[in-house]
């Protein structure tokens, strides 16, 4: 949110921007993503579907690539994940989803828990990876990300057993962060 408004005000100061290689790369990544989603949803391979999808994804990409990929991203690897490692990350995420769901199930019926708000840092560098990390922390029951400020996370943790920030970070996000740092650098 904050970065978006900053880049918007920056654009207003310099209305005409030269066409850089980075803009072209952003444009084509956005178009490829849109076209892939279109192909999966349409699931037709005749020339009409493919060509209209291609045209539509190029038009939408031209309108929205500035929003889809932020300009200040460091490199290509911080946006495009390794596909195989992303699948491993999803497997880790689903595993931790079900384990923490069963813990939460027990907590609902016993009424026992030690909810507390913990603070810790992440060592991921890319914005997208940090967003995915905080989203997957919220995705697993038992932990909710309250705030993400650069690399500081504020998390409500239902099964808190430590006050140490590093230990809490390891317990909440250790496995997820390790799998993510392989997928997004």
């Amino acid at each position, binding site marked *: 949110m904050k970065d978006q408004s900053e880049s918007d005000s920056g654009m207003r100061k310099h209305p005409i921007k030269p066409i850089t290689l980075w803009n072209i790369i952003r444009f084509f990544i956005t178009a490829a993503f849109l076209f892939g989603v279109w192909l999966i949803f349409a699931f037709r391979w005749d020339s009409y579907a493919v060509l209209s999808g291609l045209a539509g994804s190029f038009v939408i990409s031209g309108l929205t690539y500035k929003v889809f990929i932020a300009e200040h991203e460091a490199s290509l690897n911080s946006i495009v994940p390794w596909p195989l490692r992303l699948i491993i990350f999803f497997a880790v995420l689903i595993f931790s*989803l079900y384990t923490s769901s069963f813990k939460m199930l027990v907590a*609902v*019926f016993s009424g*026992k828990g030690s*909810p507390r708000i913990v603070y810790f840092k992440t060592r991921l560098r890319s914005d997208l990876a940090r967003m995915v990390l905080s*989203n997957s922390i919220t995705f697993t029951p038992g932990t*909710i*990300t*309250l705030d993400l400020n650069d690399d500081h996370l504020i998390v409500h943790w239902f099964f808190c057993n430590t006050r140490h920030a590093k230990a809490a970070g390891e317990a909440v996000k250790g496995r997820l962060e390790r799998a993510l740092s392989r997928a997004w650098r």
Partner: protein
Amino acid sequence: MRITLDIIAAVSFLSTIVFGTAGLIGLFRFPDPYSRLQSGSLCGTTAVFSMFIGALALAPNGAVAARIVILTVFFMVSSPTSSHIVARFIWNSGVSPWKPEEKD
């Protein structure tokens, strides 16, 4: 193969029922908004995710399966975002979390 997929679907739908019911019970049992959101996420993510897995096991062909996978990915982005917005609003309005009275 068919019977295996049917069993996977049945187990997934059963876990949907169990987690959905537990989340709903927790929504009324817990005293503070954070804990209610936690059990609401039990209902809102685990139950729905299990339902998607069951639907994926029952998909008749590859086209439907691919659409279900895309829907699951969109759901994995949108559902935590909405509960994060609610939690962030609670946090910014200064509600402190519930502390159960135990000896600890």
